[in-house]
């Protein structure tokens, strides 16, 4: 069943492009609508087309050259050297240098970077670390490490928006962001002349605009995929790219490992999958989806309320607070989890918005930033606040690491969710990247002049 769902998602992704490989048309303006901020991290659409990384993620999950043309590691992956692509310019004409890159990456993560130090050495950028960083090339392809020109920006161009990508900041007013084609892009000029992004549009309004021909690309939350199909929207969906998970506090009421294990057994993933998320994505009790590992079936996703009661050991139920990050569906999911836990004897309240309090359980969406298992697992752990380098390369080794991490019950995987968009009939060759973000630089319009 799960495999069928995964396959159906992939089919949707692959079915959208034209039947045969045809050359794209140049020209035209793509009209996009989004619910949030297009510059947000991770996943902001504008970030992805304005900024480039040192590496980029290919569809098969390997890191491929982008602003860096080659790289090598030394000293057991504790020293990495990335040689920059020559002749690349930022949108304002500034030449890309290793000093620019170092400044940008330092500004992004400061003291919280995965590496210990970063240096500009000639035309190369050198990363050093106290511990091995075997997945650094894949990590640098992620949304967090895109290169922006630091110190640039003024009233016309906001900070962090001058990059080397295929589109450049045009203007922004009244919630409409205009991105113009970068004629001098190192990857070649994009096919579209411009992208017009209408920001902070509700999903309802986005779909309405799509239905009356005022939008070409709108968002489809995973929980509304079924509804989108019923409304006959042309949907392009990614394979699972984010993990819905509970992060569990190891202090306060849930300091006991047995209580945390009890919580993990009490959650009913099926009801979340069937009711809240309308049977989209896949149920999981593992950190990585089956497509990446093949072993996720070894982690049982079954609910066992009796065992949850046993593990609680008759202790008077502690009062727990659960919070949810993000969209309304997440709030509904948190309420559903709270109901599950009450069945197992816990007294659970959903956190009230704006009231500072100790949170025991947080329902979050953790992005899967790669489709290589090691960097993907690292990205999830990092987003969950568990910065654990994953050095294992074999399935058996990865399984062991995952089993150990999940054994602490600080992170409880629930569902894997896809990222999806609805597209108008004008749009062609729109592919979703490994992180589910639309690759707008490769898209074109059927009716372009």
């Amino acid at each position: 069943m799960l495999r069928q769902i995964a396959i159906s998602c992939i089919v949707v992704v692959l079915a959208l492009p034209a039947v045969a490989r045809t050359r794209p048309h140049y020209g035209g303006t793509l009209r996009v609508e989004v619910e949030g901020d297009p510059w947000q991290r991770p996943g902001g659409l504008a970030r992805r087309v304005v900024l480039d990384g040192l590496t980029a993620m290919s569809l098969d999950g390997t890191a491929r050259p982008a602003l860096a043309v080659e790289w090598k590691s030394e000293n057991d992956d504790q020293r990495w050297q990335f040689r920059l692509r020559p002749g690349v310019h930022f949108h304002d004409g500034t030449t890309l240098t290793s000093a620019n890159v170092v400044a940008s990456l330092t500004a992004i993560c400061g003291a919280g970077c995965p590496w210990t130090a970063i240096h500009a050495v000639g035309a190369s950028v050198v990363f050093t670390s106290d511990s091995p960083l075997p997945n650094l090339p894949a990590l640098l392809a992620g949304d967090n490490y895109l290169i922006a020109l630091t110190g640039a920006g003024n009233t016309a161009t906001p900070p962090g928006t001058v990059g080397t990508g295929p589109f450049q900041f045009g203007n922004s007013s009244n919630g409409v962001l205009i991105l113009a084609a970068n004629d001098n892009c190192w990857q070649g000029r994009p096919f579209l002349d411009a992208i017009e992004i209408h920001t902070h549009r509700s999903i309802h309004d986005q779909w309405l605009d799509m239905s009356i021909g005022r939008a070409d690309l709108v968002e489809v939350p995973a929980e509304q995929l079924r509804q989108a199909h019923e409304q006959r929207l042309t949907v392009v969906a990614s394979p699972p790219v984010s993990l819905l998970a509970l992060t569990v506090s190891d202090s306060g009421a849930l300091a006991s490992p047995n209580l945390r294990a009890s919580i993990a057994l009490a959650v009913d993933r099926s009801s979340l999958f069937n009711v809240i998320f309308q049977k989209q994505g896949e149920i999981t009790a593992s950190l990585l989806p089956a497509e990446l590992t093949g072993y996720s079936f070894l982690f049982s996703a079954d609910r066992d309320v009796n065992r949850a009661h046993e593990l609680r050991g008759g202790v008077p139920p502690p009062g727990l607070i659960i919070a949810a990050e993000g969209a309304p569906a997440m709030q509904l999911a948190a309420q559903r989890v709270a109901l599950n836990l009450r069945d197992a004897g816990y007294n659970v309240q959903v956190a009230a918005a704006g009231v500072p309090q100790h949170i025991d359980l947080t329902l979050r969406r953790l992005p899967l930033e790669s489709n290589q298992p090691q960097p993907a697992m690292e990205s999830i752990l990092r987003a969950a606040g568990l910065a654990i380098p994953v050095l294992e390369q074999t399935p058996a080794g990865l399984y062991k690491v995952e089993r150990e991490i999940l054994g602490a019950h600080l992170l409880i995987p629930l569902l894997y969710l896809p990222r999806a968009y609805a597209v108008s009939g004008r749009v062609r060759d729109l592919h979703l990247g490994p992180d589910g973000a639309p690759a707008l630089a490769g898209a074109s319009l059927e009716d372009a002049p």
Partner: protein
Amino acid sequence: MKLLCLLAMIASVLMVQPASATSGPWEQPAAALAEQIAGILGTGQAHLIIQNNSTISTDKIPAIRRALEEALKARGVQESGAESANTIRITLSENIRERLWVAEIVEGNETRLAMIRVEAGALHQEVSTSEITLHKQAVLTTTEPVLAALEIADSYVVIEPEEIVIFAHSATGWEERNHIGIGQKRPLARDPRGVIFPSPDGQGFMASVAGMACSGTYQHAAPPVDWIVHCRESDDPWLLTSPRPPDTSSAASENLNAFPIRAFYNADRNSFTGVVTPSMGTDLPPLYTAVLIPRPDGAGLLMNGIDGKVQLVEADALKPIAGTRDWGSDFAALHSGCGSGTQIVASGSGEAISDSLRAYEVPALEAIATSAPLAMDGTVTALWTALDRKSVFAVVCKPSSQGHADIYEVDRVTANCN
């Protein structure tokens, strides 16, 4: 002598038969997994359960089960009934890269695991039942996009987006000798294109890329060949067909070579404007590709418009060609000698991630497939007819391995008559 031959045949059959009867794609992974299981369980009995979570078809499962049973037996693990205290639960799983076979070895309350990877790629077989079979042979591999290439005067002249690269023969194949910058002043396109043909006197080449025209001449044909290459800004029309005089005696070939056709290229786009010279007697829409093909009354120009429609220009009229829905933007003529003698090799991808090439004939106003698709293991980014016209060249972009640029492979595609 006959007896000797017969004995040799019998001996060879006897030598081959046991291997073909027992070896298959599953024996090796079965042995590897059995080895791990035996290492955990030791010798003894166990109940064997096999579950298929992969895309392996169910009709293959009995063979896999047999292979596993035999491999376990050879290592002292005998299969027993469900009443056994030990259970080996084997799940045939997979991920996007490979197959994964997982054994859960249950002894009482304890479960231990064994896992092996199984390569997915080696298990596919294709059978061709078509009129012709296409074959490919890699000619050249580079890390820069190849727009077009020409083998001439013991050299291989390759047009890249910003350079012309001259390769010369070496003991290991083609070896880079010269890089000549094209010197574009305008930004490069995301979908760059180029063409290269021999010059009319046969002493060099003529090449076009967006906004530029280049010509090359060689000083003497014996290696090492010295090339002199000049590039200049130009909006002259590009050659679509070879300007060389006919070099065969067939009427069709004479017709095809008699009309070198040029087309104006839109340097801001990736297509031709539709203005061609000499005139075709009718207005043409903007187009990506056009090739001359023999027709009963001479030659016709088969063209692919940017609207995706494939049309034939014949007798001063544009005629739509049916059966081309699966074609990509690029195609080239292949004078294979099979069937009617000439096929169109068209690129396409269907629902596959990689592109394929397929041969078609256009006897009337419908394209009929005459070969099975030839998988190209990447994206076909350029396609043109070879100078001998008995093969076509395809440039295939293949995804890179970690830390390296994408690979561009120039493949020569030829046809065998079935």
